[in-house]
């Protein structure tokens, strides 16, 4: 498959547009000098990823990503940001002074991963059948072959819930404890 063939497929135009949006917002997540903007750029990355999942006929995972990540995780991040700092202007000193070594390291990680995947899969194509993976298949898989990991993960969520409350709860001072008991 030559480059001309690749460009002539309309599905690849869609992919290129989404990929550019995902890469741009991903880049801004790690470079933005405003905490709130960084969290909001993560929404762009995740939304683009959900669109890619739709292109890969993974409908259920795409909507799970939108619901759980954009709906819950990003909101949680915004809560965390709002609580841990008062003004919402430009934040100075969000990055460490040493940036060259991390940049070289991450470029090396990218080159290594990209080289490995090109070396292993070359021009292997994804068949676009146009039929989405039905939620029924995923549900049967979750409650059939993967039922034990599924239960373990639900226990992890419960533990995280209780742990989060226990960690973040402010302990009452002895005076407040007395006041609470006397009411």
């Amino acid at each position, binding site marked *: 498959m030559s480059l001309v063939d690749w460009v002539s497929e309309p599905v690849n135009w869609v992919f290129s547009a989404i990929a550019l949006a995902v890469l741009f917002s991903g880049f801004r997540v790690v470079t933005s000098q405003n905490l709130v903007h960084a969290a909001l750029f993560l929404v762009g990355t*995740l939304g683009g*990823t959900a669109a890619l999942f739709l292109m890969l006929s993974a409908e*259920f995972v795409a909507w799970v990503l939108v619901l759980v990540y954009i709906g819950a995780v990003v909101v949680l991040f915004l809560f*965390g940001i709002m609580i841990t700092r008062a003004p919402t202007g430009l934040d100075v000193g969000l990055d460490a002074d040493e940036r060259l070594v*991390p*940049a070289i390291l991450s470029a090396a990680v990218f080159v290594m991963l990209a080289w490995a995947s090109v070396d292993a899969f070359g021009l292997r194509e*994804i*068949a676009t059948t146009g039929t989405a993976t039905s939620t029924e298949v995923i549900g049967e898989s979750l409650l059939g072959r993967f039922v034990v990991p599924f239960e373990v993960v639900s226990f992890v969520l419960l533990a995280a819930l209780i742990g989060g409350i226990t960690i973040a709860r402010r302990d009452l001072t002895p005076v407040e404890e007395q006041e609470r008991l006397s009411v």
Partner: protein
Amino acid sequence: MLLNQFLILAAALFAFGVYGLLVRRNIVLILLSVELMLNAVNINLVAFESVLATSQAVGQVFAIFVITVAAAEVGIGLAIVLLIFRNRKSANVDELSLMRW
């Protein structure tokens, strides 16, 4: 569509996550970078699933597990950040030198 166009995009996102993890000083931004890396892994899993087309959608199920664990991680992580901020009045990792020798 080639498989590699998805894999290389995921590799680039993962590299951004690595960069953010190493460069950022604020704990919340470090957690954001971890989310980027987990997201790159999800892209890989779903792309491999659509190539292999397993009968039980194994790749997508694993992506769902990754999303679930990431949600739990964010919840606990932000609770810890909140506690650190309450005690130290700062959310920067280089100022948390209490246990540094």
